[in-house]
């Protein structure tokens, strides 16, 4: 997977949703050394008693029934250098600089389980190589997006969204697409409807692969400037930029393999029996 972009990588995995009103907050400490137990103690004291945390190296999943705005605000005030990677009931997210193989080892990707996942390996073209610039990008809850391509109008989208009080974390073009779509969904659009507006609004080259708690959605720009290939079997759907990243999947010989058409929105529902 790293042949195309060895500089940074990421993976979002959607697992069974956490019970009740709780959410999973994925935290990333980067090169900072952090005492996770101390963070839990302070958070229990300041925010809510209902705080659990599972840490692995510089990554932790905090689970709580506290409101996301509350957690976000508390983290910003007390741990300003800690990065909140994702919020949701189902999503876990890992991203970092380095070769995908290093990430896979570091975060034990082979132990992860879930109904669907979105991975990315980056070859940076328009903004810095940092963990925050790695994909997948997230916005809102249980939503992530990866992008192959480059947008030519991310700044105008950004200005439009910032006026509405939407906060950006990086100067990356993909983040503009991610926050635009999440803004449309927060206004009541389905992801597919949001994408129809995105096809009008987003100028540039893109193959976008997105996931929510119960969907996997793919779209390519009108010119099909960036590649994509999909494989469907009775057991799974797999999407990649190139067939060679799918070639080793079980049962690929019997898969229905096709190239997604430009500007067509492909949407796969994750069955609830699997998600439960």
């Amino acid at each position, binding site marked *: 997977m790293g042949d195309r972009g060895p500089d940074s990588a990421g993976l979002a995995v959607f697992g069974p949703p956490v019970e009740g009103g709780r959410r999973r907050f994925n935290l990333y400490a980067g090169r900072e050394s952090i005492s996770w137990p101390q963070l839990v103690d302070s958070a229990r004291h300041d925010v809510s008693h209902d705080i659990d945390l599972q840490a692995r190296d510089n990554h932790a999943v905090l689970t709580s029934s506290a409101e996301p705005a509350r957690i976000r605000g508390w983290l910003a005030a007390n741990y300003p250098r800690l990065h909140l990677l994702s919020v949701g009931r189902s999503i876990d997210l890992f991203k970092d600089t380095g070769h995908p193989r290093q990430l896979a080892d570091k975060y034990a990707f082979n132990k992860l389980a879930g109904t669907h996942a979105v991975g990315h390996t980056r070859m940076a073209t328009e903004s810095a190589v940092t963990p925050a610039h790695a994909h997948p990008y997230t916005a809102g809850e249980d939503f992530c997006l990866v992008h192959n391509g480059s947008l030519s109008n991310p700044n105008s989208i950004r200005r439009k969204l910032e006026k509405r009080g939407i906060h950006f974390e990086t100067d990356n073009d993909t983040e503009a697409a991610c926050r635009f779509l999440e803004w449309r969904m927060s206004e009541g659009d389905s992801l597919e409807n949001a994408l129809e507006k995105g096809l009008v609004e987003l100028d540039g080259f893109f193959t976008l692969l997105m996931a929510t708690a119960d969907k996997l959605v793919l779209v390519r720009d009108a*010119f099909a400037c960036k*590649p994509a290939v999909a494989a469907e079997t009775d057991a799974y759907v797999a999407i990649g930029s190139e*067939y060679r990243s799918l070639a080793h999947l079980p049962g690929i010989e019997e898969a229905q393999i096709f190239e997604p058409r430009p500007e067509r929105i492909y949407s796969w529902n994750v069955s609830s029996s699997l998600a439960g």
Partner: protein
Amino acid sequence: MERVVEPGRMTMRDSTSPSATALPVASPPETRVIEWDLARPGKSVRALNQWLHHDAPRDAAGSCIRVLNPNGQHHIAAGLNAPLEVEIAGHAGYFVAGMNQLANVTVAGNVGWSVAENMMSGTVRVKGCASECAGASGHGGLLVIEGDASSRCGISLKGLDIVVGGSVGHMSAFMAQAGTLTVCGDAEHGLGDSLYEAVLYVRGTIHGLGTDAREEPLTSADVEKLASLLGRAGFNYDPKSFKRIGSARTLYHWHIDSSHAY
């Protein structure tokens, strides 16, 4: 070392044959198959291509070179310059059989972007579908895609003949200068945009011609040419069922009325 399969062994592997007992007559006994398994250590695409460029023309003359486990890898059998027979047993990635000269390359699967790009001569046959830019800038020879080809098929064509059994995607034959693109199925929008002297034949529906491309009457010379191309490609369609698309040549010279466009 590549694994050499004796003729008798090879025929046993032929899945299209009804039974092993019927085979000795069906298969030319003199055809030797040399297998190159890309999954084996030291058998990378680079090693394969170096062998095909340097030693294979001497060592594999008259043999069929079968490439196993291509798994969508790029550049397989690119840059050949000898009358070799190469069969790729599975899906290939980008630039497969690129710049081909003299060789006959068959892919028993799908191919990624730019199959046979800039090919000069010989034959490249894809038994599945091709991704974008198939035959881009090809100068000569024959490229057959038995399934569909996606966008920009035959872009900047310079003399190659392309025959597509299925349909082609948008902006196919963009700026095609010489050669032919024959499409047995449909063509997406922008077909033949900014066409020069290449000629396009389409049997199905054309979802929009590009700028300066126009439908022209099918001549008896076209029918003869099509019959030959379809025959070589192995498609049994009536040549008269195709439409001919050529250049209206209105973009060849600067026109003062276009000045507002700049």
